[in-house]
């Protein structure tokens, strides 16, 4: 049967140039579905990937109890000191806790592309912030000096927002701050602006902090640290492992992007499915006498079914490859920004991964199989004598 199916399939494929228009409908339709699906999923994937990379299992973030995010959290200075004294917090050579009590504020900056204002996270960090987060690297200029109105900007933030190039002066609160450096970070901090926490708090006239991030001696010290802090009667805090915190922040947007991808992809897939059905019906119809002749010669229904399915799937796969290639060429690695968990923009890179390409191909195969199903059934169910006569 397979030899017969192969022969009929090759016959069918040889006829494609005669039906190039109809065949292109399938290829282009499915290329569109796969391209859009992969692009939107790449957005979700890139966003989630960026958020997932923010954080290490041996770092914990401490918020006020009941707060979902840093913006909703407030911690008094004595609370931050108690947190940094918690069990398992790693100390540097001079015995200081590797921890950072931080202030978070939102600033509005114009997007480079549209000029519209969007929110950026402004983070005031403590002196140990760079030992706490060694993945943050200064790539241009220098870091800020405590006591001076200086900021450093994340590389991703700089590519997306205007007015924060090194040397620029940024209006924050009632005063102007100088951008003295650019830092790179593969995670969501790369979309932020950072300054010395005490200088920033003074400018914003704040006495409270939003969070404390600590480095633990090891990831398995987390439970003891959490238990100690959450049972400390002086404190009312929530202790979260850093990756879990950022996963929580990204969960909703990730879910929305995935929903949009599958909804838009699903609607387009329906259109492509009708295109495939139409093409395969016309393919089967134009070859009805040939198919009937093959059946008369003894080729079974299985060989005919396989040949129609194979043609439909091959056209769909061609569409999938084009769609995936287009998504990869136009979007892979592109930096985009979207609203993150703190109502601020997170800049991330679209990621057209092998997994997403596989998802696109799977969709194409399903569309091809469904598009080939009914025409294939029609081809084998039609009485041979009717088909030989060319009767409808």
């Amino acid at each position, binding site marked *: 049967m397979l030899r017969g199916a192969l022969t009929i399939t090759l016959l069918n494929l040889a006829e494609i140039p005669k039906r190039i228009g109809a065949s292109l409908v399938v290829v282009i339709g499915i290329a569109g579905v796969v391209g859009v699906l992969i692009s939107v999923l790449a957005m979700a994937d890139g966003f989630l990937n960026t958020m997932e990379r923010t954080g290490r299992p041996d770092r914990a973030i401490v918020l006020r109890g009941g707060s979902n995010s840093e913006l909703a959290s407030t911690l008094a200075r004595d609370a931050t000191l108690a947190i940094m004294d918690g069990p398992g917090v790693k100390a540097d050579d001079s015995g200081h806790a590797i921890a950072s009590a931080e202030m978070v504020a939102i600033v509005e900056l114009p997007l480079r592309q549209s000029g519209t204002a969007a929110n950026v996270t402004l983070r005031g960090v403590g002196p140990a912030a760079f030992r706490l987060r060694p993945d943050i690297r200064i790539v241009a200029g220098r870091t800020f000096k405590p006591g001076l109105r200086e900021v450093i900007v994340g590389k991703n933030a700089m590519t997306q927002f205007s007015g924060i190039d090194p040397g620029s002066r940024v209006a924050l609160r009632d005063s102007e701050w100088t951008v003295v450096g650019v830092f790179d970070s593969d995670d969501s901090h790369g979309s932020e602006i950072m300054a010395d926490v005490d200088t920033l708090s003074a400018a914003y006239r704040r006495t409270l902090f939003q969070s404390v991030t600590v480095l633990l001696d090891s990831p398995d010290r987390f439970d003891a640290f959490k238990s100690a802090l959450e049972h400390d009667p002086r404190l009312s805090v929530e202790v979260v492992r850093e990756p879990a915190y950022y996963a929580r922040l990204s969960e909703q947007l990730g879910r929305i992007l995935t929903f949009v991808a599958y909804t838009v992809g699903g609607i387009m897939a329906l259109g492509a499915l009708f295109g495939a059905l139409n093409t395969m019906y016309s393919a089967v119809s134009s070859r009805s006498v040939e198919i009937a*002749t093959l059946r008369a010669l003894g*080729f079974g*229904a299985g060989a005919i079914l396989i040949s129609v399915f194979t043609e439909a799937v091959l056209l769909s796969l061609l569409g999938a490859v084009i769609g995936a290639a287009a998504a990869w060429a136009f979007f892979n690695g592109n930096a985009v920004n979207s609203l993150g968990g703190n109502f601020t923009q997170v800049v991330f890179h679209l990621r057209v991964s092998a997994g997403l390409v596989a998802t696109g191909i799977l969709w194409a195969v399903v569309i091809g199989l469904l598009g080939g199903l009914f025409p294939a059934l029609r081809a084998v169910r039609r009485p041979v004598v009717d088909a030989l006569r060319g009767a409808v």
Partner: protein
Amino acid sequence: MALAVELRQVVKHYRRGKEMVEVLSGLDLAVPEGEFLAIMGPSGSGKTTVLNLIGGLDRANSGSVTVCGERIDSLNGAGLARWRSRHVGFIFQFYNLMPGLSAERNVELPLLLTHLSRAERKAHVDIALEVVGLSDRRRHKPSELSGGQQQRIAIARALVADPTLLICDEPTGDLDRQTADEILVLLQTLNRRQGKTIVMVTHDQKAADYASRQVHVDKGMLIAPEDRP
């Protein structure tokens, strides 16, 4: 002599809209092995239906159809397809060759349903093309061949798996007289030299004259020669 084809009390009707049209009304027919039978009759008489039933392309509503020793009216679709591939070679009025395949690939088609190796298939194809005198046209596509040559290729395709029975549906209906005669001589030779049983439907009395026996079908029944108008 054993019978190659035996139809007993065969009834066949079709639905045309809401109406049932009876095409064959209790038809009996026996074709001995090695016979070249021509079935004649006016349009709509049911002769092609008889041919389709013998070739296992259609099913009778009642009665029995025994071909090459097998009750084919009791076979299912897959069984019937297998049976056709083993026992019957078809020759159609319009040749029904695959336009995308060369002559030799067209001839090879029935062999793809066998377990023959590529070399064995090639050997069979060579013989079949030689029998029909078209060895030199093996690489040509059907569109590069004349009508007579296409029909010869179709005959080679019908012969290549060495079937017991050749079913010919107006095999010369699309050909000029001279070419038609050449094809009919070829069929006659296959019948006489290779002992192939041939059942042929034709409108053409000259074509029927090549057969060893002629029967007439009218209004779904076989008409005895003395009853013909």
